[in-house]
């Protein structure tokens, strides 16, 4: 039943992506299309939430026991931050870039054979659920930082090309994207840090974590802490900052998928 919810949510995200494609081609900022896009994203978000709740009720625990569940959770957290951040910053076209990203995360999760029962190595504890939940929320914020960085990269390229394309008028200013990107990074790193602390505390309750996971977690935290320092203290702006933010998220996903496969 929960998978049906995820599939239906995916349909809404696919529709939002198709709308995005149409808007990109037309190059017109039609308000009604923007509202339809937001409504499709909200519908997908609620269906995804229903799927996660149903799965949690079946498992009698937070649904973060295998790679599939984690991927669904990351996609959900990404939409959650989009819905929270988008309206407050009035970032035009953020949803248009978020929808395809969520679609890819959901589709790969649903199609790949990764939804297999998995008994976690550590015994069940609320601290582990806290650690995993906050970590996934951090991934959502950092995924949105990736989306914003992609928009920044595209806008910078258009400005540098001297021949702006149809998306030029639809995307926000590079400086605005830079500011939002840094704020999302701060939020993501703060959540990562809290999640790490949860992980450290859980060790005292349930025993030591497998060392590859510990190495991965610290490496990810260090990469993001260094990136945040570069973008705030080191005055990294524009293309370099955008590329580094996208690369950091690719590292996070690669390490996370790699560790999850190893754990299986």
């Amino acid at each position, binding site marked *: 039943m929960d998978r049906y919810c995820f599939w239906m949510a995916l349909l809404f995200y696919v529709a939002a992506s198709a709308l995005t494609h149409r808007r990109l081609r037309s190059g017109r900022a039609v308000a009604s299309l923007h509202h339809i896009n937001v409504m499709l994203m909200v519908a997908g978000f609620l269906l995804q939430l229903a799927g996660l709740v149903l799965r949690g009720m079946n498992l009698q625990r937070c649904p973060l026991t295998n790679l599939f569940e984690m991927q669904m959770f990351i996609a959900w957290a990404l939409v959650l931050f989009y819905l929270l951040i988008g309206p407050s910053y009035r970032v035009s076209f953020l949803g248009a870039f978020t929808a395809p990203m969520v679609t890819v995360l959901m589709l790969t999760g649903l199609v790949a054979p990764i939804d297999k029962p998995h008994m976690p190595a550590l015994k069940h504890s609320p601290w582990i659920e806290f650690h995993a939940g906050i970590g996934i929320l951090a991934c959502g914020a950092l995924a949105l930082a990736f989306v914003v960085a992609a928009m920044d990269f595209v806008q910078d390229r258009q400005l540098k090309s001297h021949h702006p394309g149809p998306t030029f008028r639809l995307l926000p*200013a590079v*400086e605005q994207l830079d500011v939002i990107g840094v704020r999302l990074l701060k939020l993501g790193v703060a959540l990562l840090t809290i999640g790490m602390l949860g992980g450290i505390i859980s060790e005292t309750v349930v025993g030591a974590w497998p060392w590859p996971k510990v190495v991965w977690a610290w490496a990810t935290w260090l990469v993001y802490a260094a990136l945040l320092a570069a973008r705030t203290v080191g005055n990294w702006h524009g*293309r370099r900052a955008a590329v580094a933010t996208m690369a950091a998220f690719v590292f996070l996903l690669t390490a996370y998928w790699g560790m999850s496969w190893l754990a299986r």
Partner: protein
Amino acid sequence: MNLVLVGLNHCSAPVAVRERVAFPRAKLGEATCELLGAAKLAEAAIVSTCNRVEIYTLAADAEQAGPALRRYLHTYHKLTEPLDGYLYERHNRDCIAHLMNVVCGLDSMVLGETEILGQVKDAYAAAQLAGATGAALNRLFQKAFAAAKHIRSTTAITRGSTSVANVAVELAEKIFRDLTQSTVMVIGTGTMSEATAKALRSRGAGTLLVCGRDREKSGTLAAQLGGRAIHYDDWPVEFSKVDIVISATASPHPIVTREKLIPLMKARHNRPLFLIDIGVPRDIETGCDELENVYLYNMDDMQQIAKDNLAVRKREINICRELIAERVTRLAEWLEERYQ
């Protein structure tokens, strides 16, 4: 009853003629009332802008209304020479189509410009206030405004700027989060740099610095635009605080080079910098554009963007005309049913 339009515009009459038949904005209502009595019309509205003077009326006899409107223009403006060669006349369906083309910017000097919609709205409001409009003209203008709104939101007829100064503003708005927080520096005074600075200022650009060898000239321009004049030799000192540079000097060599810019970018914490080079020969070394967060545009770049935008608008004309044709048919049918 027939809709009758008599008028002239930038295509049919030179500016010397247009300025003689223009109606002062404050006197539009009074002139419309006078027109109703003089030409025995049921309804009337006068649209008067720098590019057009048009009288829209509802008259019992179209054949008589045309000459009466021409006479009125002569009498009101106390003209001695004939206007006939400059005036055009449209009836019923053609009159509706003409107004819709006008408010959609299809008949404007700058294709797709949006200012005309506001001007026609003002003219309609003046006529309405003077009690000169009735069911026919009310419907005609309201349907025309609705058509303009629809066309602006569904086609690309208003997309992009078609003047170099506005292209510069559009680019600045895609670089900086808030133009009111940005500082603009004009190096060298000239028509183009003045127009660009004015356009940026009109969009709320914060501080403005004017820097030129001729102190008097730069002082006058600074005062005109509400900015501050600085000495030509001081521009490198102020440069680190500046976000937008408009350079239009007569210098034979580039005044901003890559080597000079690298330390200046460090001093401004690598924040985005928009360089507009209007000088011929160019004032800013092309290598500056390779630096991160530096966006360099010269005259050719901006003219090309303006040209591309105009081409996009031109491609939309047929779509707009099709959309207008549907609305013209519906309104013409309504008029026929009501008045014949």
